[in-house]
């Protein structure tokens, strides 16, 4: 039995986040329920970035001076911190500018392999007409559009798994949609809209059966759940720093070692090479093969600090606390007449991110009324237009929590939500 964060621990966590103490809209306490879009940052993360620039700033992986050594150590130590946090080995973590860039990196590496780059070892990534790429209707645009583009460039066909009425990946079509022709199966670990947590095992099992590569969008899972990528058995995974209490401008691609070793580079230039002549170039081993040019060193260091912060809280405790928030959020939204949840209405296998529609009131107007009470939610299609189309709505409002969220805040949100339809003159 995992223990959740106690009241004192939660208060201590909140005290770590300077922004949470500010007020909005004429002095109202901020109720930040938009962590699914981006999380707030604890002081240790801000300090890590500041400390890097005030104490260690230098170019990494070059230079013989002490600062260069210390900067390189901080940079690589951050990689180890992030790797440990997600159950990966250090050399399986590639820094990217964000999670979208991580997914695009895999898609463009496959393009390059299709064009014959990377030699015989990279042939396993080459696509041809007749090959299929499978995604799901639940995906964020970041895990859909790069695959549409890869299909268009290579002549492969894009197929997808549907979504159930409660907002989960529909696995009933798995054996049919994922076939011997499937070369890539890309899917989200947890939906940024419905909050549904994917049962990864059957998807990985089916992909292995047919020899397809798996690409996991772990943006929403890594900040909120214990994630062990080796145990999940996926081939690639992408996640961002800014959603897991880290800074913007940095994300990570996880790739199984043997795959990264066989994969051709995408962005080329300095820092990712071995021997360069005027005619040709040999490339560094991963992860550096995929890290051309000056890296986002201070952000990487701060992302490492974020991983360590969460790791020290304990992701079991974080998940247990957020499970309580899930129950509170679902109760809050279901208790208001005229409000419908898009996604699972019960807390099992579900994140504390709840999207909903208010009958007769557009999501934008819902968000505005909540904002007036100091409650920050996301409104719109949350970069998932096909999913909204699947549910016949143009936009939803989404309340999403993080480790620093309290049930008291959710009560403020509930109160404000209850006033929305009244404000627009609609009866219950």
């Amino acid at each position: 039995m995992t223990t959740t964060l106690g009241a004192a621990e939660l208060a201590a966590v909140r005290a770590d986040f300077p922004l949470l103490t500010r007020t909005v809209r004429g002095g109202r306490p901020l109720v930040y329920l938009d962590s699914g879009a981006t999380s707030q940052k604890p002081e240790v993360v801000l300090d890590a970035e500041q400390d890097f620039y005030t104490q260690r700033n230098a170019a990494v992986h070059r230079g013989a001076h002490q600062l260069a050594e210390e900067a390189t150590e901080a940079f690589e130590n951050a990689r180890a911190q992030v790797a440990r946090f997600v159950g990966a080995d250090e050399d399986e973590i590639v820094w990217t500018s964000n999670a979208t860039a991580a997914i695009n990196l895999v898609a463009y590496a496959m393009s390059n392999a299709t064009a014959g780059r990377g030699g015989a070892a990279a042939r396993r990534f080459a696509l041809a007409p007749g090959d299929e790429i499978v995604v799901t209707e639940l995906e964020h645009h970041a895990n859909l559009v790069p695959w549409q583009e890869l299909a268009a460039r290579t002549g492969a066909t894009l197929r997808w798994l549907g979504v159930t009425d409660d907002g989960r990946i529909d696995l009933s079509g798995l054996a049919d949609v994922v076939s011997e022709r499937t070369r890539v199966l890309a899917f989200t670990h947890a939906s940024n809209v419905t909050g549904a947590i994917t049962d990864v095992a059957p998807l990985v099992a089916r992909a292995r059966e047919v020899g397809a590569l798996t690409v996991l969008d772990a943006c929403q899972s890594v900040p909120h759940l214990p994630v062990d990528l080796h145990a999940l058995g996926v081939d690639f995974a992408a996640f961002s720093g800014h959603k897991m209490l880290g800074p913007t401008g940095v994300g990570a691609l996880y790739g199984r070692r043997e795959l990264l070793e066989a994969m051709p580079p995408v962005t080329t230039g300095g820092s990712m090479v071995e021997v360069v002549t005027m005619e040709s170039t040999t490339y560094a081993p991963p992860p550096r093969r995929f890290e051309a040019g000056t890296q986002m060193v201070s952000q990487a260091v701060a992302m490492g600090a974020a991983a360590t912060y969460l790791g020290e809280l304990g992701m079991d405790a974080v998940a247990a606390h957020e499970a309580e928030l899930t129950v509170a959020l679902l109760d809050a939204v279901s208790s208001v007449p005229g409000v419908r949840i898009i996604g699972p209405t019960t807390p099992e296998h579900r994140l504390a991110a709840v999207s909903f529609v208010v009958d007769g009131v557009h999501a934008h107007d819902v968000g505005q009324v909540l904002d007036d009470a100091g409650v920050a939610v996301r409104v719109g299609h949350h970069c998932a237009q096909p999913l909204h189309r699947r549910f016949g709505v143009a936009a939803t409002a989404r309340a999403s929590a993080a480790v620093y969220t309290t049930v008291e805040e959710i009560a403020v949100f509930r109160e404000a939500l209850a006033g929305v339809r009244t404000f627009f003159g609609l009866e219950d």
Partner: protein
Amino acid sequence: MSTGMEQLYQQLILDHAKHPAHRGEQEAYDVEVHHVNPTCGDEVTLRVRVDGGSIAELTWTGQGCSISQASASVMAQAVTGRPVTEAMDLSGEFRELMDSRGELPAAWESRADDEDDPLGDAVAFVGVARYPARIKCALLGWSAMKDAVSQAAGTEETR
């Protein structure tokens, strides 16, 4: 509710959102345009018929927040029957209102009371200008109108 909210959602805006003017799909039209607001998914489809340099008929359909729907309604009322050049001027004036940061520009002060002023109802949108994220909602219908009308006027000249 705060004063800001009361100014944002003035009764006139809520009324227009509930009972939008010129909402529909006219059969005879020169140009149809479809404009979307990609950040929130709001959309408007607008048809226009230009005759003798004036907007003879304009109708629209769409989905979106109360601000975008009310603004399209006020826009349609304001420009229908007016010369194209005048409609473009009105659009520019509305844009100025949106850039006012919520302080009613001096030139707008008497407009609400002037029954003949095509932008009389548009004064209600001054509160929107206080919320930067909502300005694009209020401009959606206007930008569709400008696009459609300039295309239709161009076609008419070459006819």
